[in-house]
């Protein structure tokens, strides 16, 4: 091979040889490996546990898309959704974040969040855009768990919220639903978390959760009542309107309050309470201390309702608890018996003298009261509505009465109603007036006057005989006497005229008495009519039906 290179080419310059060179290029794969290891390590580290969730349906669950959120932070993702072996439910597996691992314990709950619109709340609207997600509520248990059964509905109160749960017992649900607010002095203090029928199907057990700090106002003596809607009440007290809030009107609500003087110690969680239908009923004295009395009335009870107040000179001391007819077969009589409950606490004297009274002392005390004239009476509480109430009052003129303590319940003597009494009195007066022997009186008077007239005539004859005998003086005196006699005769004639059966005075008197009798009759009609149709006072006389 020849050398074709032109000699003009320079030769490469020779530098002294360099010492050993570190092949820096190998730093690159080392760095890459480190980065790779770091990324892999981090991924492995962040990889949390895998949990399985059971749901009734797979609605909205998308593998690889649906997220699991706790306190609105992503803590996992649904990785697969498949049907259970028996096809009864859906099993989803979820890859959880590492920080969520300690939250996956025994009582952790999962549920599917989707948009929900109800009367009281609109929730999960964000899911309309972002799609359904799975909500999670971390439990408090320390026992780890990896397979869960999803809830059908989102829990109303998450476990992390401080507060306490209580159980309420009610007869009907009313407009209560899960999530119904519970108010304390019109502040929303909690919510209904669950309700279920008891095993016998007789009562409802309602779980409520009261948030801190309101939960400490729930004491043993606290009363819960249904504050749903508008409580419009027409009673002997008049028209009453009670409501808790606008939401409660629309969607229902509960409320609670502790009556003054109640226990101030906070009730333990899970304490049972009764749910009263109204606030008034809830705040009444407990009926366990009530004394039941029976009243027997002969007059109509129209206008008296169960729950009507029992009142002592304006102080409500009890209420009517039942009204029923009482048929006495032996006497062939139908009376009406009214049971009332009286709360002795409300009648306590200032010195608490009645508080420690023994049963016998109490009976003696009541006997003394009856002796003084204590009676129960039906009174008209409201002329407009015709509502009746039971009044206890002293009637000093009432006849003697005794309590039969053997009766169950003991019967209190009653007094006829005030309107009824007035009516009876008026008719008694009319009857008495009717019985007056006016004709006899007139005849007697007439006879007496006739006798008087004959006496006068005889005196006149005597005077005429004396006239001849007497002196002038005597004559003058006689003349004067004669004149007097004439005047007397005139007077007698006047009197006779006056007492004649067709005399105007007698006529007037008879007319007036008849008029009074008629007035008494009309008054009886009026009271009858008013008793039957009390509203006539407002509306006028009802149309007579043909």
């Amino acid at each position, binding site marked *: 091979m020849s050398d074709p*290179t032109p000699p003009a080419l320079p*030769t*490469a*310059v020779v530098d002294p040889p360099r010492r050993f060179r570190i092949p820096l*290029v190998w730093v690159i*794969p080392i760095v*890459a490996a480190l*980065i790779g290891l770091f990324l892999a390590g981090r*991924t492995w580290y962040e990889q949390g546990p895998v949990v399985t969730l059971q749901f009734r349906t797979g609605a909205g669950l998308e593998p690889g898309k649906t997220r699991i959120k706790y306190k609105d932070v992503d803590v996992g993702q649904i990785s697969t959704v498949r049907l259970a072996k028996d096809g009864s439910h859906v099993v989803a597996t979820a890859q959880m974040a590492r920080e969520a691992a300690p939250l996956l314990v025994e009582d952790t709950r999962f549920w599917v969040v989707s948009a929900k619109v109800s009367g009281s709340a609109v929730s999960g609207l964000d899911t309309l855009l972002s799609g359904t997600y799975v909500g999670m509520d971390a439990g408090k248990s320390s026992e780890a768990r990896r397979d869960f059964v999803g809830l059908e509905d989102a829990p109303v109160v998450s476990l992390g919220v401080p507060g306490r749960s209580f159980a309420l017992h009610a007869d009907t649900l009313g407009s209560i639903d899960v999530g119904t607010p519970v108010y304390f002095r019109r502040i929303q203090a909690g919510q209904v978390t669950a309700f279920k029928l008891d095993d016998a199907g007789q009562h409802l057990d309602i779980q409520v959760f009261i948030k801190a700090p309101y939960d400490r106002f729930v004491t043993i003596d606290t009363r819960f009542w249904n504050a749903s809607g508008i409580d419009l009440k027409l009673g002997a007290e008049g028209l009453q309107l009670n409501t808790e809030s606008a939401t409660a009107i629309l969607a229902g609500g509960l409320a609670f309050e502790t009556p003054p003087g109640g226990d101030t110690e906070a009730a333990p969680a899970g304490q049972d309470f009764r749910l009263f239908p109204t606030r008034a009923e809830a705040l009444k004295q407990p009926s366990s201390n009530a004394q039941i009395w029976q009243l027997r009335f002969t007059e109509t009870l129209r206008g008296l309702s169960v729950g009507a107040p029992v009142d002592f000179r304006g102080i409500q001391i009890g209420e009517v608890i039942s009204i029923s007819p009482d048929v006495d077969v032996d006497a062939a009589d139908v009376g009406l018996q009214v049971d009332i409950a009286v709360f002795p606490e409300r009648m306590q004297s200032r010195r608490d003298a009645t508080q420690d009274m023994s049963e016998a002392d109490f009976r003696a005390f009541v006997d003394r009261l009856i002796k003084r004239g204590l009676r129960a009476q039906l009174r008209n509480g409201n002329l407009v509505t015709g509502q009746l109430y039971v009044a206890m009052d002293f009637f000093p003129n009432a006849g003697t009465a005794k309590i039969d303590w053997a009766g169950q319940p003991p019967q209190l003597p009653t007094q006829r109603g005030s309107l009824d009494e007035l009516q009876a009195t008026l008719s008694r007066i009319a009857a008495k007036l009717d019985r007056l022997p006016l004709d006899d009186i007139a005849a007697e008077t007439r006879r007496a006057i006739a006798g008087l007239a004959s006496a006068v005539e005889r005196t006149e004859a005597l005077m005429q005989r004396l006239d001849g005998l007497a002196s002038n003086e005597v004559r003058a005196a006689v003349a004067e006497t004669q004149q007097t006699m004439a005047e007397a005769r005139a007077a007698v004639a006047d009197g006779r005229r006056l007492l004649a059966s067709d005399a105007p005075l007698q006529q007037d008197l008879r007319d007036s008495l008849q008029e009074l009798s008629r007035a008494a009759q009309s008054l009886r009609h009026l009271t009858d009519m008013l008793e039957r149709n009390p509203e006539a006072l407002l509306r006028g006389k009802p149309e007579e039906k043909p």
Partner: protein
Amino acid sequence: MKRHLTAREAGLMSCHVCGQLAHIPADRAALLRCPRCRAPMHLRKPASVSTTWALIIAAAVLFVPANLLPMMTTSSLLGRQQDTIMSGVVFLWQSGSWPLAAVVFFASIMVPLLKIIALAWLTVTVQRRSRRSVMQRTRLYRIVEFVGRWSMLDIYVITILVALVNFRGLATIEAGPAAIAFGAVVVLTMFAAMSFDPRLIWDPLTESGKPATHV
């Protein structure tokens, strides 16, 4: 194949920088410099095989996170979504954009992978002083070097999207950790292709059996 005279056989070498031809001095162990521009002179790219190996290994290591980690995080009102390269391809395929899915699949997954494999093969054959299919290997090298820059397609798309889609609260797109890894893979393969000296493919033909001196 007809053998031609090589520069080394002619006792000549060229400067990598200014292209000046120069005689090879007798002292081969010495560090040589260009007589014109004083740049270091080598007969072949120095440490070509080991450098290529290093870069290929680095690229292969980073190829794993580039495909497993999310490439792009799309946050919008509809939620937050993280996409890896493969999930993007799957999404495109499922939504019916088959050509686009194919393009993304080839440009972002196949090409870097094939590049790494091709470079590794080239380097292995050079190390083994293989004399077979020299022409094909040279062509492969040309293709690898040409194709290299096109793999950055994904990165371009992401950078543009990140810059454009940034409506705070409505929608934002963020590059994920895989974007960096993927970019590194592409850059490393390009460097690997650069550091590979294609003349090494032909050297076994000239020095029959003799180990090449890569000075």
